[in-house]
């Protein structure tokens, strides 16, 4: 039974501490299904926690990685992720699709992939995007954690200027937040799907970002993404554009999703969640739940495809 005293308001934005407390609360409420796992730490030494949803503890089953909050100012992504965590525990055993996914696979959910940046947006600068690492020789702080992965690192669509919003960092995985995820995924060795939540623009994209070259699985990824976008739109009519990153928005090297794909994780997608209005990164809190609910339909469509097409 869900604990009736749960008073976490999923329709509001929260501090990092509140999100971590809620993750702990979810894991405590559903110990047979969920565990909160520390996968590493940030530059300023904040813990990085994922929720692991598994019905077969101890076995390394095919797994799905849901990543959120890598760009700290995109608050709707962290909020959608923590809502998704509660959705998974609430619907397991009731929703046949989710239940069958969890009978075959594990789901790992990282709601705040850039903890230092997130705290900084809540205390110093709401529009901060990058990590908070120090750049020797520069007054500018941080690197873009979504240009820091070892996938055509420092290629087109990234900058070598530490003051740039898309600064790729001194070397691949220089950002400890990125390295924590890379090491965990490479240590696990059985991930089949990697989904990264960003905002804003209503885009559902797949590799590649670092080249205009067509990914080997592009046709299948495109088909899955279109079905997911259709499912997402069925709730509130939010229309998404679908396509490879490079030709849908702009070239971007060193991204998480390209790294995942080039490292054998075939089902790799980026969601740019809504702002259908004019708020940009400042999406009002009253749109959190509608956004999370529609996104869930898209996520589930992808996860069902992965479940039925394990490789």
């Amino acid at each position, binding site marked *: 039974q869900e604990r009736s005293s749960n008073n976490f308001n999923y329709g509001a*934005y*929260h501090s990092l501490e509140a999100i971590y407390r809620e993750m702990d609360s979810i894991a405590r409420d559903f110990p047979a299904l969920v565990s909160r796992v520390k996968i590493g730490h940030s530059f300023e030494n904040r813990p990085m926690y994922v929720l692991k949803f598994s019905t077969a503890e101890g076995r390394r089953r095919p797994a799905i990685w849901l990543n959120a909050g890598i760009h700290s100012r995109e608050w709707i992504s962290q909020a959608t992720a923590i809502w998704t965590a509660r959705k998974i525990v609430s619907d397991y055993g009731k929703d046949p699709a989710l239940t069958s996914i969890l009978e075959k696979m594990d789901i790992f959910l990282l709601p705040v992939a850039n903890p230092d940046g997130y705290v900084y947006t809540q205390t110093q600068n709401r529009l901060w995007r990058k990590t908070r690492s120090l750049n020797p020789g520069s007054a500018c702080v941080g690197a873009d954690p979504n240009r820091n992965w070892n996938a055509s690192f420092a290629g087109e669509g990234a900058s070598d200027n530490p003051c740039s*919003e898309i600064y790729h960092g001194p070397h691949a995985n220089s950002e400890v937040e990125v390295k924590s995820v890379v090491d965990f995924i490479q240590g696990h060795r059985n991930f089949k799907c990697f989904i990264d939540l960003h905002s804003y623009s209503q885009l559902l994209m797949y590799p590649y970002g670092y080249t205009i070259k067509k990914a080997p699985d592009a046709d299948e990824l495109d088909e899955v993404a279109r079905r997911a976008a259709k499912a997402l739109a069925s709730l509130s009519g939010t229309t998404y554009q679908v396509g490879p990153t490079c030709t849908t*928005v*702009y070239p971007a090297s060193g991204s998480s999703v390209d790294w995942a794909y080039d490292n054998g994780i075939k089902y790799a997608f980026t969601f740019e969640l809504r702002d259908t209005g004019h708020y940009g990164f*400042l999406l009002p809190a009253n749109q959190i739940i509608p956004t999370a609910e529609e996104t869930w339909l898209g996520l589930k469509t992808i996860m069902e495809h992965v479940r039925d097409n394990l490789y």
Partner: protein
Amino acid sequence: REKFFGDQVFRINVRNGDESSKLSQLVNSDNLKLNFWKSPSTFSRPVDVLVPSVSLQSVRSFLKSQGLEYSVTIEDLQALLDNEDEEMQHNEG
């Protein structure tokens, strides 16, 4: 804490490559301290840019002189941030 009083967000409608290249002059002007929320891409997508209050006049003049169509999507960023902050404080309680 960074404040954004009077800062505005412009949505610039880029209709073709020519307009995209005109816009690149703005992108490369460090002195205006612009923060591109949605960067220019070659796919005639709208560009969202945060314009600090001190640069508003220069940016308006530039866009007008180049014939670039734009709208103001956020009139005063700090007012929006204050709302968000107030709501978070309320919820925290």
